[in-house]
C-alpha cells in the first residue's frame, strides 16, 4: 500500500495548483459573465499559496496529515472571495481525517472529495441546483464513495460526475452567491465555481493515479 509523505502531498497540491493556474483566464471569463471576474485569480492564487505554505511546512517537518490545516489557513488568507472560506472549510474538514499522520495511504485520499463536499456545504449552505460549486462537489462525493470499487475507479467516476455537474449548471439560474442577483440572466453560463471544482477533481485523479496503479480492489 503506497504511503504519501508530506513532500508527496505537497506535490499533489502542486498538480492542482498548476491546472488552476492554466485555467486562470478561462475561470475569470466565466466569472466575468455572471459574477465579478475574479474566480480565476482566487483559485490560482489560493492554490499557489497552499503550495507555498505547504512546502514551507513540509520543510519544517510538518506531518503529511497536518498539511491540510496549513492549506486551510493559507487559502483563507490568500482569497477574500467566497471561494476563500469555502475551500478553507474544505481543507479543514479533510485535515480532521488525517490529523497527526506522518504519511497518508494513497487509497485513503479519494475520501477527501467527500470531506471537501461536507466542508463546503457546512460553510456555504448551498444545495445542488443552486448553481454553485456544490453542483460538482456533491455528485463527485457520491461517486467517490461507492465502496464496491477500487480507488482509481472511484476517482474516474468522480471526474465524470464532476463534469456532468459542471455542465448541468449551464441550464440553472443561480440562487446563491453573487450570480444570484442576475437571476435568469445567469442562464446559459457555466458556473465558475463548478468549473474550478471539476478541474480540482480531475487534477486530484491525475495526481493520485501513479500511486494507485493497482487499479480495482
Amino acid at each position, binding site marked *: 500500500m503506497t504511503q504519501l509523505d508530506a513532500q508527496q502531498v505537497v506535490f499533489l497540491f502542486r498538480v492542482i495548483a498548476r491546472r488552476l493556474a492554466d485555467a486562470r483566464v478561462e475561470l475569470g471569463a466565466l466569472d*466575468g459573465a*455572471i*459574477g*465579478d*471576474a*475574479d474566480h480565476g*485569480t*482566487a483559485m490560482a492564487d489560493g492554490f499557489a499559496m497552499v503550495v507555498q505554505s505547504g512546502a514551507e511546512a513540509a520543510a519544517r517537518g510538518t506531518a503529511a496529515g497536518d498539511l491540510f490545516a496549513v492549506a486551510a489557513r493559507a487559502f*483563507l*488568507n*490568500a*482569497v*477574500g*472571495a*467566497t*471561494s*476563500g*472560506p*469555502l475551500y478553507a472549510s474544505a481543507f479543514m474538514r479533510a485535515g480532521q481525517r488525517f490529523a497527526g499522520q506522518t504519511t497518508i495511504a494513497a487509497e485513503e485520499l479519494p475520501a477527501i472529495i467527500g470531506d471537501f463536499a461536507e466542508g463546503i456545504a457546512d*460553510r*456555504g449552505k448551498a444545495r445542488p441546483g443552486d448553481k454553485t460549486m456544490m453542483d460538482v462537489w456533491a455528485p463527485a462525493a457520491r461517486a467517490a464513495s461507492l465502496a464496491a470499487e477500487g480507488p482509481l475507479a472511484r476517482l474516474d467516476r468522480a471526474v465524470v460526475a464532476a463534469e456532468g455537474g459542471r455542465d448541468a449548471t449551464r441550464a440553472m439560474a443561480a440562487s*446563491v*452567491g*453573487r450570480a*444570484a*442577483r*442576475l437571476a435568469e*440572466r445567469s442562464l446559459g453560463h457555466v458556473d465558475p465555481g463548478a468549473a474550478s471544482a471539476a478541474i480540482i477533481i480531475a487534477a486530484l485523479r491525475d495526481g493520485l493515479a501513479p500511486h494507485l496503479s493497482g487499479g480495482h480492489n
Partner: protein
Amino acid sequence: VKKLINAPKDAVDEALKGALLAHERLIMALPDTPRAIVAKDGPRAGKVGIVIGGGAGHEPSFWGYVGRGLADAAAVGNLFASPPPGPILAATQFADRGAGVLYIYGNFSGDVMNFDMAAELAAEEQIAVRSIITTDDIASSPVESRAARRGVAGNVFIFKIAGAAADRMMPLDTCESVVRRANARTYTMGLALEPGSPPETRRPSFDLGPDEIEIGVGVHGELGVVRQKLISADESADLLLDRILAEMHPSEGDQVAVLVNSLGSTPAMELYIILRRVRQRLKARGIGVHSCLVGPYYTSLDMAGVSLSLLHLDPELAALLEAPCRSAALTLP
C-alpha cells in the same frame, strides 16, 4: 486603459500605504496586521466598537470612514475581495472596549463568510459581536428578497449613523437597532457609462457599446439589470430616483439625505448636474433634503458612472447624521 500604477499586484498595498501616510493624523495600521486600519482618536472605554470592511478598489472606502464619530477600525481585503478573518479579528480586538463590537459590511457572500468566521473567533474571546449586513442596492434583488441585496454606496450613511450612535455611548443593543433601521431606510441604485479596469488586466471588466449604459451595476464590475442607450443626465437621475422613491414611498414633509456618488472617474460637473435634478424632483414631491454628499465616496476603481443613495430620515437618524465626525473622507465640524 492607462493607469498610474507600478506592478499591478502591488497596487492595493501601495495605495493603502499612501492612504496611511496621507492621513497619518487620523488612522494607522495595527502592528503586524497591515490590513487592519484603526482610528487614532475615537475608541475609548465603554464605547461600542464599530468595525467595517470589505475589498479594496472602493477608495476612500473603507479606511476613509475610520475616525472619531465614525468607525473605529476597518479590515481591508485585496481588490474586490473580502478580508480574511485575521485582520477582521484584529480590528475587533482593537475596537472592543468592553461594550461589544458592531460589524457593518456589504452583503457579499465572501464578506459574510469571513466576517462570520471572525465573529466566531471573537466569541471565543468573549467579545460580544453583532453583524449588520447592508443591503441598500435596490437593483440587485427584488423587494421581496431584500435580504439578498448587495450593500454599496449607501454604506456611507450607515457607517455615519453607526459611528455617531457609538460616539454617543449608546449600548450595543441600541446601536444595533438604530443601524439596522438606517440600513432598512437606505436605498441605492447606480448606473455605469464605462466599466472599470482592474490593475491586473487594465481591461474593462465588461463591454459596453459606445452609446450604451448599464443600469443597476454593482461596485465590483458586476453587470446590472438592463442595458440601454445613453440618456441625458436628467433622465438618468429620474430613472434612479423613480426606482428609489417607488420603494421608499416617502410622505410629503419627510426628510432625506442624498448621496450622489462617483463610481470612480465621473467628474464633479456631472455629479452636480445629477444632484440638481434630484433636488428639483424631491422639491416637487414635497420631500425635504437634510443634507447632500456629492463626490467619489464609494468607488469601483475607475468605473465611469454614478450611484444615487437616499436615506429616509427620522428625527433620531437626522440627529446622528449631522453629529460631528472626523475622518479622511468625511469631516463634519
